[in-house]
């Protein structure tokens, strides 16, 4: 019983850590631009495919492919926001959110246009899990978790110690005050899209490394990503990490209580529970 529980928690921590990467992107964009940008799903897919091209076509190692999985969706995220979503934001957050849902379908089909529907896997060896004390964990999972942790540390350093990072937090905390202080909201908007969508792409590839990818890779992950952001507190970056771990571990533990077929229910249930009892999320709305 104990080892079963411990195994589920390990699986949940690994899943949650990977989930945290795109969830941070989602919540950061919400914090600054004040609307849920669901194209995070498509950018996770774009990242997964950018990494695939680098790894399979160009023969890059996984770590280098991960850099491209960050860069391409970062650029496409900025472009999509600049030309399509920004003009709509004036009409209110709901308009922008609905437009982003539409864009998910458009971008997903752009990927499909170039790569088709087939499943694709990275050109990496698959390793058997390590076992200890009746528990097991995969080398790929550990690597993925390490990448996710490094990405988070870099982001926290950026937000905490650089001028641009501080500007981003300032806009997220109080846009009015930030503009009075002379912070250019447009530049910060571009920056948050660059970082947020880049993280989504990185998360997309991390998910793909352990499984396989197709044009729906990001779309399948959007519910737990959204749940993680809401549970942690929309707009709060540490909240997204806490939320992702909660959702990751919660989904795994729900297997014991409800059975595997109801795993997705946990995401919905978590959103419902938080909205009913603590609408601001576990850590509230503070960006950092």
């Amino acid at each position, binding site marked *: 019983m104990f080892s*079963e529980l411990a*195994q*589920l928690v390990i*699986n949940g921590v690994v*899943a949650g850590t990977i989930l945290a990467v795109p969830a941070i992107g989602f919540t950061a964009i919400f914090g600054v631009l004040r609307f849920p940008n669901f194209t995070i799903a498509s950018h996770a897919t774009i990242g997964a495919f950018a990494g695939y091209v680098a790894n399979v076509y160009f023969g890059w190692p996984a770590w280098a492919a991960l850099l491209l999985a960050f860069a391409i969706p970062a650029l496409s995220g900025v472009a999509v926001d600049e030309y399509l979503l920004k003009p709509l934001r004036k009409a209110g957050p709901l308009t922008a959110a609905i437009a982003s849902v539409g864009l998910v379908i458009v971008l997903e*089909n752009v990927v*499909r246009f170039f790569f*088709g*529907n*087939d*499943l*694709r*896997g990275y050109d990496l*060896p*698959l*390793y*058997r*899990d390590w*076992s200890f004390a009746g528990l*097991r964990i*995969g080398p*790929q999972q550990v690597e993925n978790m390490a990448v996710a942790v490094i990405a988070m540390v870099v982001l926290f350093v950026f937000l905490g110690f650089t001028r641009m990072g501080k500007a981003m937090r300032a806009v997220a905390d109080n846009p009015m005050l930030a503009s009075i202080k002379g912070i250019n909201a447009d530049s910060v908007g571009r920056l948050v899209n660059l970082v947020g969508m880049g993280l989504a792409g990185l998360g997309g590839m991390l*998910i793909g490394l*352990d*499984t*396989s990818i*197709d*044009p*729906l890779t990001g779309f*399948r*992950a959007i519910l737990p990503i959204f749940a993680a952001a809401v549970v942690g507190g929309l707009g709060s970056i540490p909240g997204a990490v806490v939320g992702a771990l909660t959702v990751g571990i919660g*989904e*795994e533990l729900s*297997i014991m209580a409800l*059975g*595997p*077929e*109801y*795993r*997705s229910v946990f995401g919905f249930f978590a959103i419902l529970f938080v909205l009913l009892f603590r609408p601001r999320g576990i850590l509230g709305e503070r960006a950092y």
Partner: protein
Amino acid sequence: MIQKTSLTATRRTVIKAAGAAAFVAAMPSVLRAQDGPIHLGALNPLTGAGGSYGPSMRKAIEHGVALINANGGLLGRQVELSGEDTQTNPDAAVRAARKLIDADKVVAVMGTWASSVTTAVAPVCWESKVFLTCVSGSDTITLLPHHGYLVRTQPNSTLQMEKLAEFLGKDLGAKRVFILGAQTPFAKPNEERLTADLPKYGSELVGALVYDKDKTSFRSEVDIALKAEPDMIYMNGYAPDVTVVIKDLFKSGYDKGRVAQAYAMNQKVLDNLPAEVANGIYTIAPSPAVGSSAYKDLSDFLGTADIDPYSCQTNDHIALVALAIEKAGEASGDAIRENIRAISQNAAGEKVENVVEGLKALRAGKEINYSGASGPCDFTDIGDILDTNFRYEIVEAGKFKTLRVG
């Protein structure tokens, strides 16, 4: 004066027009459409889990339509094909079916793939008296109250599970079978069938688990399966989730038997798995009629010697629908329903293997018995396929090797 004449003429015109409109509205819709093309619908999984089959299934239908139109059409009218994407998603498929039926006025919808999609689309079709042909396997589909507006060319779960139980128990000598299945309409029926059929071959079902197929990892599910100590795991899902299950089983250290349906474990899945991970996986699939002239013709058209069973089946769908319309002398869902068995399983009829031959024979006043690229195309009263071959394969060195067909 001029004004008055003009006014009278206008009134007459209006009365004539109104009369004509009333007459047209009073006519049965069949008569109204008599001069234009005959509209048929293709509803295939161009995207989603069935996305690796949909485009080829669609081409097989288009090929049939092109052949029919090049040979004088049906009842002297051209055939116009309207195509939609199910997205392998019941909601999207129902919207697409509504569009085909309400806007495009099709009399038949051909080629739904996933069982959940067919289950959702079937009521839309039978309520509109539109004929539906599908390639879905779940037992529950033909048990729907479809009033005869549905046939399938894919063997049902009962037949598939009988064959699987025989293969696992008799051919492979598996003793303890576990099902890791995706949440689909056939998950539970398959479990029940295997529970009943495996003991006939000295084997037993030691457990079954239904998982949510949209998850990105099934590690915990694999742990649950391994606790039952199976010597054979039946991976009863679709390609995207089965790929993940295969990887997770490998990582867990499991090195005993694995079996999957060939639609979930196809060449494309294999290309994306390291050889040592996929080696030794068994697959089972309804086998097309590889020796038939219809198969050869389709193979030449698609440019591949190894056609998937679904494209063979949809190629037969268009042939069956077209021949039934020609036989009936009328293009409607009812006409297809009344005549489909008359052209597909009339033992006294001339055996024909492609739609063009069939049309020529019907026009010459002969009776016909169609069998196509997928097989004999004979149906039970509720629309199940009567007979089909199965092909059993194993993965060796990254390639499929046929063990037997039968």
